Every structure is written in C-alpha cells, then in structure tokens.
C-alpha cells in the first residue's frame, strides 16, 4: 500500500472546514455483565481472568440461553446520560443488530437502535488554554461488548494472513454505553485537540460517576472518530470516514489530524472521499481502509423479543440526577483555585491524569504543592519506567504520610524517595518502611558533631578555608559527613554544625 499523500495542516484548514463526530464506547464496571450474571472483566476484581472463565450460556450463544438485564447497568447508563445533559427516554428498548462474526456469540449484538435510553444532550469540553467548547450529544445507548480474537500464525500474527484465530468470550457481554455526538462544527484547526479533550472529558465524567474503570489502555474507553471536510463556503457536508478503535487520547488527536490532511490532499487533487471505515495504526500514525463489507450496512435491526422495554420512573431519574458529581470542568476550575497552582502546574496534573490522586493526597493532609510534586515527579517517573499507572503504584494517604515525615524532619527528600520505593515495593506504610530500613535522618547532634570533627581533622586545609570565610568550602566536609552517616542526615543541619565547629575549634 502506497503512502497516502498528505496536505499541510494549515493549508488544509485554509481550504476546508473540518467537521468531526465522535462515538465513544464506555465499558461499565458493574459486577456482572449487561445480559448475563457472569463476572464482568471490566470490573476491577476480574482483570486478569483466564480465557473463557467469565462466561454464562448467553455469552456463548448456547442453544436455549436467554439474556436478562443488569439493573445496575441501567442505573449507570442513566447517570451517564444525565451527566451528558441528555434527556432520559420515558421508554426505551433493546434491539438486535444482526451480523456474523466469530467474536459475537449469538451472531447478533443486543444494542439499542431507534429508542436509546438517553438522547439530546451537550457537554462542556475545556481545551488546554481554558477555552470551553460545548459538544452536542446525539444519544447514549446501552449495548454489549464482543469477545476477543487472537490471530495466530502467518508472517505477522496480524489478522491478514493468519492461519487461525482463537476466541475468548470473557469480554462478550460486558456492559457498554455508546455515546454519539452530533456533527461538531466550528472547531477549525483545534478539531484534533477538541477530539482529544472530549475523550478526556468523557473519561473524567465516567471516573467521577464511578461507573467505569475508565482506563483507555485497557480498552475501557474506545473511540471511533468521524471526519469530513467541506470546502469553504459550502453548505453541504462532505463524505465522512470513520476511523475505528482509536484507543488513546494522543491517538485520537493524531488520527483526526491525519484524516484532515489525507482527505484535504485527495479533495484538492480533484478526488472524492470514499465513505468507509478506516483503521488507525499506532506505530505509523496513519489510517488505512477497513475491509470492504458488502453487507456492512444491513444489520436487520429489530426489537429484541427476549427483553422488555426500559421505562425508568421519574423518581429514579431524579434520584440519580441528585447524586450526580460536579461536572469535570467546574471541578477543575474549583481545584485550580483552591490549590493556587499556576496554569502550567495545573496542566501538568491534568495531563498526567492525576487530579484524583492529588486531590486525595491533599485531603489526607499534604500541602497542594507537595502533593503535586510527588505525583507529577517521582511517582510518574517510576510509573513510566515500569509501564504502570501512577495511581496504581501508591495510595494517596501514603504519599501524604511520606510528605509528613519530610515536613517534620524525619526524612530528607532523598531519603523520602527511598522510602517511596519501599512503599511501592509493598513493604508497608512510609513509617513502617522507615523503621524496617532504618532510614530516618540522624537527628542526634552528638553523632553529627563527632563525624564533623573527624572530617575537619582529616582535612585541615578545608578547615582553614572555612575559617578564612570561604564558606562554600564546607561542601567537602558535608560530603564526608553525609558519607559517614550513610546519607541519613539533614544536610542543612550538618552545614550549620560545620560552621559552628569550625568557628569554635
């Protein structure tokens, strides 16, 4: 496949207006699946389940099996709909979407079609410079996830040329809410950034509601990005492409940008855009056409006869509305003001996905600046090195406790970093690590003075320099003392004592 021609992004924006639409699937973290009582792999307890261990008859489409609706998934879906500013349908229903694929146990997906549970909403999305864009929501509907295919053999192990495929139905039936935006106009050159920020907003809402693990790298949130271009001054919408399964925030921004540049090059060259689904390739940062399917658009939807309409009472809707958390954008504005961070400091926290962690650490007693430094600094560094999530490494209370030990002088920053490693390694609370590893600062002046006197005696030239007023020469003595103390001393106190001893001796 030849590399696609791309037009310079700014030039593309001069000629065309981009219109984007986003379809985001959110996996709910209920205990059980949408339509079966099997444990839900999108729940924190079940992440590493062996293949085909979380399956009920209906997930495999076994003869005679029937679906039943998870009450908690209904509540989560309504809450999500409300958080997106949607109206909740007085009556909605499930439908069958019929298509054959080996990861689909019944060869139909139970979804919602003409009567979704939530419709007509909007959500405020904040761009990095603080601009608020209101994204219109078309609908949010409930459906079930499909199983997982692993392609084996062939040159690359990818689907093309694979010899066979293995199917694990653990994920089949995981509750999903699919959120569909209306076409988004007017984002212009910020369309890629908006796509990313929108996805972050959906993630934040899901986290705030507590309805999803919301880890993109685990596929808890997945995005399909629709992009079309229309020439400046044109009323009619251009032909769109749908890039499937763009599963990180960075990728969605890149994919939208790529499609704008690719389509602009085609249109400017007199070509036409094919309406198709496209695949995103993380490695090359490009999209390629999906397999053309002759029957792709004939899903033969019809009302699911095995399930009944969902008609939430006004009381239930109001109960869930009253329990809604603060909208993420408002929450961010509040926290930024409370913490007194600069724009840059705050963006660091937001972009690192560390708002919750910092908030919990502050709540546990740490100063906001200390909490921020730990999370965006050392903890993020270790997380990156280990390929894990910062939030999964250490509990906010431990971070606050660690900072407390620094503040009271028990630990130096350097020692505190060692204690953090111990906590991450599972050695206990910071205090327990300090005790077990014997890491506390030596605060006994007697021991320090003995070491200082020894070092001064060993380096009389340095002592002389200090006495001559060359105070910076004390560094050499500090080094020797710290070495003797195995680093467990407060350097500032050591310095103080050196100056004192030098003047006395």
């Amino acid at each position, binding site marked *: 496949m030849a590399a696609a021609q791309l037009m310079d992004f700014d030039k593309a924006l001069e000629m065309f207006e981009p219109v984007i639409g986003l379809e985001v699937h959110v996996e709910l973290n209920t205990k059980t699946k949408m339509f079966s009582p099997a444990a839900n792999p999108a729940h924190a307890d079940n992440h590493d389940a062996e293949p085909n261990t979380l399956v009920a*008859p209906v997930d*495999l489409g076994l003869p005679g*099996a*029937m679906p039943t609706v998870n009450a908690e998934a209904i509540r989560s879906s309504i809450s999500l709909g409300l958080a997106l500013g949607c109206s909740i349908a007085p009556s909605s229903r499930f439908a069958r979407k*019929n298509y054959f694929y080996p990861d689909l146990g019944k060869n139909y997906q139970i979804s919602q079609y003409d009567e979704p549970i939530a419709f007509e909403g909007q959500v405020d999305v904040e761009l990095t410079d603080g601009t608020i864009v209101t994204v219109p929501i078309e609908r949010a509907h409930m459906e079930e996830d499909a199983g997982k295919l692993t392609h084996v053999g062939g040159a690359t192990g990818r689907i093309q040329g694979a010899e066979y495929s293995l199917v694990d139905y653990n994920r089949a039936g995981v509750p999903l809410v699919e959120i569909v935006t209306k076409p988004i106009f007017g984002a212009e050159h910020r369309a890629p950034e908006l796509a990313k920020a929108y996805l972050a907003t959906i993630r934040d809402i899901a986290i705030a509601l507590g309805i999803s693990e919301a880890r993109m790298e685990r596929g808890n949130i997945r995005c399909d990005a629709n992009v079309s271009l229309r020439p400046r001054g044109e009323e009619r919408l251009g032909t769109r492409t749908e890039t499937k399964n763009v599963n990180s925030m960075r990728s969605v921004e890149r994919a939208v940008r790529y499609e704008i540049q690719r389509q602009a090059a085609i249109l400017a060259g007199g070509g036409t855009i094919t309406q198709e689904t496209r695949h995103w390739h993380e490695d090359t940062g490009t999209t390629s056409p999906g397999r053309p399917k002759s029957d792709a*658009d004939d899903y033969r*939807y019809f009302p699911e*006869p095995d399930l009944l309409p969902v008609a939430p009472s006004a009381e239930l809707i109001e109960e869930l509305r009253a329990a809604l958390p603060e909208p993420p954008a408002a929450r961010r504005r509040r926290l930024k003001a409370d913490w007194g961070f600069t724009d840059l400091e705050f963006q660091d926290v937001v972009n690192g996905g560390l708002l919750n962690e910092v908030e919990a650490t502050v709540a546990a007693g740490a100063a906001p600046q200390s909490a921020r430094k730990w999370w965006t600094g050392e903890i993020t560094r270790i997380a990156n090195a280990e390929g894990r999530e910062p939030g999964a490494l250490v509990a906010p209370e431990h971070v606050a406790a660690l900072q407390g030990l620094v503040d009271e002088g028990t630990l130096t920053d350097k020692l505190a970093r060692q204690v953090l490693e111990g906590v991450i390694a599972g050695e206990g609370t910071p205090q327990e690590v300090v005790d077990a590893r014997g890491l506390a600062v030596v605060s006994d002046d007697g021991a320090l003075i003995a070491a200082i006197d020894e070092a001064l005696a060993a380096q009389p030239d340095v002592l002389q320099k200090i006495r001559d007023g060359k105070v910076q020469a004390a560094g050499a003595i500090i080094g020797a003392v710290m070495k003797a103390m195995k680093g467990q001393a407060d350097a500032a106190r050591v310095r103080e004592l050196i100056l004192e001893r030098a003047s006395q001796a």
Partner: protein
Amino acid sequence: MTDDIIRLSAAQLAEKLAARDVSSVEATRAHLDRIGAVDGDVHAFLHVSDRAVDVAADIDRRRAAREELGPLAGVPLAIKDVLVTTDMPSTSGSKILEGYVSPFDATVVARSRAAGLVPLGKTNMDEFAMGSSTEHSAYGPTRNPWDLDRVPGGSGGGSAAAVAAFEAPLALGSDTGGSIRQPAHVTGTVGVKPTYGGVSRYGSIALASSLDQVGPVTRTVLDAGLLHDVIGGHDPNDATSIPDAWPSFAEAAREGARGDVLKGLRIGVVKELPDSGFQTGVAASFREALARMEAQGAQIVETSAPHFEYAVAAYYLILPAEASSNLAKFDSVRFGMRVDVPGGTVEDVMSVTRDAGFGPEVKRRIILGTYALSAGYYDAYYGSAQKVRTLIQRDFAEAFASVDVIATPSAPTTAFRIGEKIDDPLSMYLNDLTTIPANLAGVPGISVPSGLAAEDGLPVGIQFLAPAREDARLYRVGAALEALLVDEWGGLLIDRAPELHASDAKGAAR
C-alpha cells in the same frame, strides 16, 4: 400388567405410585418396553435415556424413606428435543446440533426433575420446530399411531405420538404457531399452549422468541393440568416470564370435570372461520361438540375476528424474521457441526456448514426472514406484521368482552399422508390457520379430542382459547367437555386407536 400400566393416565399412575401399588421402576420399565416394542414403527423418540430406570429407582427409594414427593413423582416423561438437557443430546431435530449436550437444563426440565418426573427420552420434531408434520426432522419422520402412513402433526409430532402410542403418559412440547395443539388434534390427544410468559422459555431452543411457548402434551386434560402445575410459573432466567401467581390447573381440570362449568358459559364461534374452510368430518365433529356443550347449558355466540385472515401472513413474516436471528448462532464456532473448507476463511466455513447442516425448510425460512428484516423491506413486512399483531389482539379483546372462551376446530384437516404436502410449503403453512392467532396475541389455547372424522376415521380436536392469564378457564372448559364425551364414549378417544404391534423389522429407537 405392563399393558395396564402404560394405559393409565398420569393421574391414575401417580395414585398407584403414591399408594405403592406400582413402583416407579416398574412404570418406567413398562414404558421403556413399550418404546422398544413400537417405536421402531412410530419413531417418536430421537434418544432414549439410559438413566431412566436409575432415576426411577431413586424416586422409589425416596418414597420408601417417606420423603415428601410431588404429585407426579415417579411418572415417566417424554421431552421434546427442542428443550436442552444435561444428560441427553438436544438437537432440535437438526443435523447441525447432532450430539450436542447442553451444560444446563431447560427450566421446565429442571422443574420436572425436581418434581420427581422420570425423563424417558427426547422426542422427534420438525427441524428447529419449523413444520406441521414432523417430516422436516433431520432424523426421519415420526408416524401417527392411528395410521402409520400418516403424519402425527408438527412440529411436536414426536411428543404427541409418544403419548398417543402409550410410550409415555406425559410429554413436553413447544408451540410457536400450533406445534402442541395441532399434533394433539391429529393424534387424539390433549395439548395446551399456555399464556405467553406462563411457562419459562429458558432452555427452549428458540424458534421465534415472541411466539414460542412450552406446554404439556398428554392424553387427558387433568394430566395436562398436573404437568402445567409442575413446569409453570415465574422464572427469573426468562425476562418475558410473567411474575404473577397462578392457580392450580390440575384443580381447575378437576373442577371442570365434576362441576357445571358449562352452564351459562358463553362460547364464541368466529364467523370468519366458516365450516367450509374445514374438512367435512372436522367441521362436523366441531359442531357436534358445540351441540353437546349447548345441551349442557352453554351459549354458542357468533363473534367476529376480522383480522384473523391476516394472521397466517403476519406469522410467516414474524416467525422467519425472528428465526433468522435466533438460528444465526449455529455457525460452527462454539458448538455443533463444522464442515471444514480447506484454505477457506471462517466465513466460508460458516456458510458451508450452515448449508450442509440446515434442511430445506429451515433454509427457506431463514432466507425469508432475512428478507423481511432487510433494509428497505422492514416496514412493509416485519413492521406491518407487528401491526397485524395489534389488530389481532384487538379482535380478541373485543370478542372476549362478550364471550368466555372462543372455540375453533384445532386444525383444518385430519392427519394427512406422509409426503403429501412436503413439496408445497404454502399449503403446509395453512395447517396452522386456527392455532396461529393465539401465538400472535399471546393468549392460551387447548386442544381436546372431539371425535373421529366420519370420512376417514381419524381423530379431530376442538380448540378453546381464553384471554391471556386465563389458562385455568381452558382447563375447566376442556375437562368439562372431555368428561361429557368420555361418558358418552365409555372411555377416552385414544382408547379407540388401533393396536400397534411390536415390530422387529425396524428395531428400537436410537
């Protein structure tokens, strides 16, 4: 003795079991012997349980230990192969499921086991319950015990033939458009389609989910009530299961048999189903049954159901549409037949397997249903058919405003000859003319033997329909008519069926 046991009704056998005049092992062996003797000819069974005697012995042991047992404990039961079972294969009459053993029991099977019934085996049926003759079974046709050259009806011909041939006192069936009631009609037995949602569908291999109902297949109305009491009631595994409490249907049948239920009963006769639409002997038997009930104080009232004429058309859109989706799971991936296609993709394997594994009637209906749901055709076909459903429900509601039950002949003709209609799907579809409206509307129906057609000496059934949730009314009325006729005939209609003779030519059931 053996012959005596198999000719007992389930209620009579249950009494003897409770009194310990007969053991469940004896009763089970008697029926297994009967199957061995006649099923080579009848071919009601696809599979005979090798555990039946053990299960019976366990019931006998529990009875000896004075355990509390249900009223039907120890009575043998035949199970339509559409119902999944953990200890026997479940094929739904299809090659594509040959040898399939379910990891779970259908709810009705689990409830039957819990009630101490003894599963004898799985009965033959039209493939995936698509048919009215059991000729569409992938495992060969079942024969009508009244005339082995004739069909036993369908799709549950196996269950009806099993009880008609005294191979089992009780059987489970499923009725999507008449598959319990029409076989009852042509075999001189009793069949009930409960109110939709009255009996769990969980574990019933779905044909058309919004039409399917599981129900009892027996020789007497009381037996049907006893079995219905065992299998009915709310099941959280079936979302469409009605949560209401139900009265005892056995009690309703007893009440009908002894009381004066017929006095003042208003029986509606649908004027859009004129006698001319039925075989002469069928229409005559129907009129005679009505006359007898009238003589006992019932009022025969002409009612109108103007949309019944659209019922068959709506049914042959809704059924294939839902079936095309329900049968998509038979794709060779997780269970069932797989035909390998060297060098082919999984799509090729699926398509070739489904071509080889499904019979012609199944393919016909899947293709028809796929068409009815296709983009651009949905509104004209499936959507319109769902509207006809509303109109038929309104017809029923209007009729039941002035009558207690509606009566019709259970089917247009007596049992036809094997092969007679197999190549004519349209005329085959008309067999369910009178039974289909109940499935579309969700109301309950019963077929009770009304006599023999004069011209061919074959059984005829009368169907009663009641409003949704009023199944008990059917048991009262059905038992009242049965009692009248048994009085007059000196026995059940089935007792007049010709003797079947042990045949060693064809061997026992597989």
